[in-house]
């Protein structure tokens, strides 16, 4: 039909033949619907046609071709940049309907780099000045889409004229275009701003809507500059009956209020009035949003807003629900009570069917987390995640991980709980947070010494479960677990099972990088076993025969215990021997306890360990172990992965090295063949020492402290490299960063750690036995042991029947969470918080404030000038923009001279809006600045008066001087005031 309509318009003027045989847009659309040859084939045929038709000299044929092309470009993503010149031709057509097609095509396809843009300036100028208001609209519409700095500069005078035209249709569009013109050519502000402001007084609702919209956008970029207009906005807020306008004005006030407390005080009541009275949900919601974001210190307003939010939250409309939740999360940081008051509803929506609502609700639940309830909330959420779909499950896990690790785990008191939670999270079927969990497991291991025994237990449980190896999302976690098992093997009750787990056949399911970690960890565990065995046999020997052996064992023991201590101590064994205690018949256990004093965390563990070691490390078990490792690693010597191959070789060579000797010396145990024994054990000791070097967390800024070696070029442009390597996959980087040992905090480990370990020891023993038992009778147990701890009223998550009635789940969830969220609940800490290693500055996240774009600076600078300085520039510059820019440049030079002075003054002025170091200055500004130098406090009032006057005054050059003189007058009278006129305050 459209085509039909158009062809009837054109038929008179176009050549009959071409019109008859050309397909109209309507034909094209119909053809597209009915085509049998495939859309792309049809379209490329059509494009071919268009290419031919668009060259026609007949304006009708040409414009119809362009219309079809625009259609295909807009809805079928076809390039039309090739037709740019034809677009310009059609734009210049004298017939409105052709022109319209041309303009539409231009706004669709032109952009800053379109070369033909240079050709349309005059056409636009002509159309902007047209007497046909629809042509003017077309030009304005087009300008709002494609204007470049050049176009904006050249057409500013035309826009200026249109800003006060009597044709409403045109004026409102001109007002909207101003926004784009300002953004592209900030100097236009000096020309047009005054007229823009005048439109705020317009009685026409259409004009008002347009101009308020523009100020809303301008104020969102730099609110400070528009404070002087607050009275106008206030009047609109009170008088306007148009909800669209009110919403925009509220947005403006939301930006202005934080800058000027007295303004906020003044407008908060009218806003509340609107909130109470309005029937429109959109306006009410805007009031709520304004209050929660910018008026949060006004108690009564916030209370009213929270009441209204509640109404939204309990509404059936999902839209209102969602917005209610959003408003709550805005206010949560400042008024947590608002969230707590609504927690039942919030938690209820955690199981809403809309993922967006669930997500908002989850965010809110996370804001309620505190030290005292983190355990309960995490428990509830983890259980809830088991019942959620993969997406939301990971959202939940992600937010738990994020919240708990915030500020170096400041919320966590019981780290044993947290690491077991991490272990539990890893086993959730949908869990895809492998990388995050991996990082946290390792990070906690390095930072929190007291948690290492539990960490090792968690790692062991993960490693030992063959089912987990098949899940690719868990591989990173398993890598972390493997690393933990190697690094903290000293806390293991049974290192043999670790080796077994690390070398189990199913590890071939792992990616090579993870496998390499497994093998290396197995190496560490192996060394540990051998070393322990030697210590043990030596201590046994030593109890029989003293002298040298005891000395050695004592030395070794010391080395082992003083993990992370300098290797140099080992090079001076004599010193150790002489200073060490000398109870000749002391047994191994006693020694270890004595020495353990150096490392507090070892204390609780050592005795048990020594106890178990005695039973575990027998000759047979060691030989078995070695054979087992050899057997498992043998096939890997044929691996093609360098990393894997190398690590395997390391172990095998090591075994080769010691095997013969250790067998021998072990056989001759007790016969004191010292030289032999020494050789094997020396190697083992050396390795053990190497591995006992403790790894600490590394400061983020550590790299910066390393001086750059001379001759190293870091800033070379490596762009070329990128193109070369574009399709090369980056090999997985090292899984763990090895930091230097951390000495600083180690000394100051709290004595509480000691107590804790001793207290928790029996229960650990119990859990150990329990898990052992579970392993044997796994079938009869529910998967998660933690459920028992939470309470009997909440059934274990994995129970299958529960999944049948999700409704019940939700209710339970609500009930339980409500309990756990009870604010008055006192934290019941069984343990004191262990020391968490923090690095002085490395963990601080430095947030660099984003500098606003220069363009905005320029706009707001100009706005300030117009509003605060004088309006005189407007009149002069309006007539001649180029003159304008030269004077601007002059101003800039001055600015450079005075910059330092300006900076000083910045400190003096109370409100930030008064001076903007990056804004442009003209002469006028500079003068004002000098005055300020004399008396910084007075400038505000003076400005204000200036601005006030300037608004009514017609502007001429001599008037400017007058204004300045007048402004000088109150200099001695007034004290420091911001720029808000008094009648508002």
């Amino acid at each position, binding site marked *: 039909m459209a085509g039909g309509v158009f062809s009837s318009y054109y038929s008179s003027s176009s050549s009959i033949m071409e019109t008859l045989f050309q397909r109209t847009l309507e034909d094209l659309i119909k053809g597209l619907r009915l085509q049998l040859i495939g859309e792309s084939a049809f379209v490329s045929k059509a494009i071919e046609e268009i290419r031919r038709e668009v060259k026609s000299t007949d304006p009708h044929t040409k414009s119809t071709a362009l219309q079809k092309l625009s259609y295909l470009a807009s809805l079928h993503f076809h390039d039309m940049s090739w037709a740019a010149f034809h677009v310009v031709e059609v734009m210049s057509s004298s017939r409105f309907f052709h022109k319209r097609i041309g303009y539409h095509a231009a706004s669709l396809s032109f952009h800053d780099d379109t070369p033909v843009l240079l050709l349309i300036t005059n056409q636009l100028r002509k159309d902007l000045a047209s007497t046909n208001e629809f042509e003017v609209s077309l030009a304005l519409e087009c300008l709002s889409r494609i204007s470049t700095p050049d176009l904006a500069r050249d057409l500013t005078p035309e826009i200026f004229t249109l800003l006060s035209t009597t044709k409403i249709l045109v004026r409102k569009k001109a007002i909207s275009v101003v926004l784009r013109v300002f953004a592209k050519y900030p100097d236009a502000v000096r020309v047009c701003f005054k007229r823009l402001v005048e439109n705020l007084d317009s009685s026409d609702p259409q004009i008002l809507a347009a101009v308020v919209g523009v100020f809303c956008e301008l104020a969102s970029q730099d609110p400070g500059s528009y404070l002087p207009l607050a009275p106008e906005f206030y009047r609109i807020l009170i008088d306007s009956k148009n909800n669209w306008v009110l919403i925009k004005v509220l947005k403006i006030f939301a930006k202005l209020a934080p800058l000027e407390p007295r303004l906020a005080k003044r407008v908060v009541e009218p806003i509340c009035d609107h909130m109470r009275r309005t029937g429109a949900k959109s306006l009410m919601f805007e009031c709520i949003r304004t209050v929660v974001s910018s008026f949060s210190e006004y108690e009564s307003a916030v209370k009213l807003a929270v009441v209204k939010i509640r109404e939204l939250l309990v509404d059936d409309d*999902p839209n209102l629900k969602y917005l209610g939740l959003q408003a709550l999360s805005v206010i949560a940081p400042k008024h947590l009570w608002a969230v707590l008051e609504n927690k039942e509803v919030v938690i209820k929506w955690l199981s809403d069917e809309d993922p967006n609502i669930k997500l908002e609700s989850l965010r809110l639940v996370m804001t309620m987390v505190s030290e005292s309830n983190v355990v309960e909330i995490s428990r509830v959420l983890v259980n809830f995640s088991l019942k959620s779909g993969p997406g939301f499950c990971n959202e939940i896990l992600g937010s738990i991980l994020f919240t708990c690790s915030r500020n170096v785990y400041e919320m966590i008191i019981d780290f044993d709980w947290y690491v077991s939670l991490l272990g539990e999270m890893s086993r959730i079927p949908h869990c895809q947070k492998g990388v995050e969990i991996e990082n946290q497991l390792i990070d906690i291991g390095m930072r929190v010494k007291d948690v290492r025994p539990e960490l090792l237990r968690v790692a062991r449980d993960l490693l030992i479960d063959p089912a987990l190896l098949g899940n690719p999302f868990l591989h990173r976690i398993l890598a972390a677990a493997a690393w933990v098992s190697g690094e903290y093997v000293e806390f293991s009750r049974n290192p043999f099972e670790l080796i077994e787990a690390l070398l189990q056949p199913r590890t071939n399911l792992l990616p090579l990088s993870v496998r390499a970690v497994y093998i290396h960890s197995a190496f560490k565990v192996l060394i540990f076993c051998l070393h322990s065995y030697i210590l043990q046999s030596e201590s046994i020997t030593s109890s029989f025969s003293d002298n040298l052996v005891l000395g050695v064992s004592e030395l070794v023991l010391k080395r082992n215990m003083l993990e992370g201590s300098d290797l140099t101590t080992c090079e001076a064994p004599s010193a150790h021997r002489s200073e060490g205690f000398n109870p000749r018949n002391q047994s191994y256990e006693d020694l270890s306890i004595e020495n353990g004093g150096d490392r507090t965390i070892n204390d609780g563990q050592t005795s048990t360990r020594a106890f178990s070691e005695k039973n575990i490390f027998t000759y047979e078990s060691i030989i078995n172990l070695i054979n087992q490792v050899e057997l498992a690693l043998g096939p890997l010597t044929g691996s093609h992965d360098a990393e894997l191959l190398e690590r395997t070789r390391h172990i095998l060579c090591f075994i080769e090295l010691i095997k013969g000797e250790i067998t021998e010396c072990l056989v001759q145990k007790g016969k004191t063949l010292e030289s032999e024994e020494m050789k094997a054990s020396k190697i083992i000791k050396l390795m053990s020492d190497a591995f006992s070097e403790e790894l600490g967390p590394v400061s983020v800024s550590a790299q910066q402290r390393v001086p750059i070696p001379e001759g190293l070029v870091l800033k070379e442009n490596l762009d070329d490299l990128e193109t070369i390597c574009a399709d090369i996959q980056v090999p997985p980087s090292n899984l763990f960063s090895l930091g230097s040992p951390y000495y600083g905090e180690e000394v100051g480990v709290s004595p509480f750690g000691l107590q804790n370990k001793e207290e928790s020891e029996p229960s650990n023993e119990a859990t150990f036995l329990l898990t052992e038992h579970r392993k044997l009778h796994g079938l009869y147990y529910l998967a998660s042991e933690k459920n028992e701890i939470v309470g009997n009223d909440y059934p274990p998550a994995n129970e299958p029947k529960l999944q049948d009635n999700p409704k019940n789940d939700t209710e339970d969830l609500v009930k339980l969470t409500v309990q756990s969220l009870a604010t008055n609940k006192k934290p019941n800490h069984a343990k004191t918080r262990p020391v968490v290693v923090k690095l002085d500055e490395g963990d601080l996240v430095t947030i660099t404030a984003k500098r606003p774009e220069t363009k905005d600076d320029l706009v707001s600078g100009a706005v300030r000038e117009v509003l605060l300085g004088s309006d005189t520039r407007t009149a002069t510059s309006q007539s001649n923009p180029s003159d304008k820019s030269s004077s601007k440049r002059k101003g800039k030079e001055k600015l450079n001279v005075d910059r330092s002075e300006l900076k000083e003054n910045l400190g003096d002025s109370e409100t930030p809006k008064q001076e903007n170091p990056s804004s442009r200055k003209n002469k006028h500004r500079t003068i004002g600045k000098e005055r300020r130098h004399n008396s910084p406090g007075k400038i505000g009032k003076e400005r204000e008066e200036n601005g006030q006057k300037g608004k009514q005054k017609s502007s001429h050059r001599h008037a400017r001087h007058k204004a300045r003189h007048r402004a000088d007058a109150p200099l001695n009278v007034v004290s420091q005031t911001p720029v808000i006129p008094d009648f508002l305050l």
Partner: protein
Amino acid sequence: MGIRFILMVNKQGQTRLAQYYEYLTIEERRALEGEIVRKCLARNEQQCSFVEHRNYKIVYRRYASLFFLVGVDNEENELAILEFIHLLVETMDRHFGNVCELDIMFHLEKAHFMLEEMVMNGCIVETSKSNILAPIQLMDKA
């Protein structure tokens, strides 16, 4: 800039009208529309009409077989945009009389014309139905 784009998409995910208030290349537009359509059309009536996408929000509403999707800045009032969509549909309804997908398909330039009267440079400038339709009626008579 308030509104960044307005899309009308049918149930099958075919775009019937696309109006952007900032320049995007064809590839950007194709990707954007693909992502948005996938995100929004998968949602049901019981779910809310707001979707966060990249760094802005999409407010959408379904009328019969047609989805109206409006991309807005984060600052924008979602409910006001819903009202705007409704106003747009009412306006088209008044002009076409019980508007349907085909009306928009075959009178695309008129739909654009209405939008141009309502929205300028991403700002809503006109909310009166008769004001919006006045120029079109004038031109129809011409």
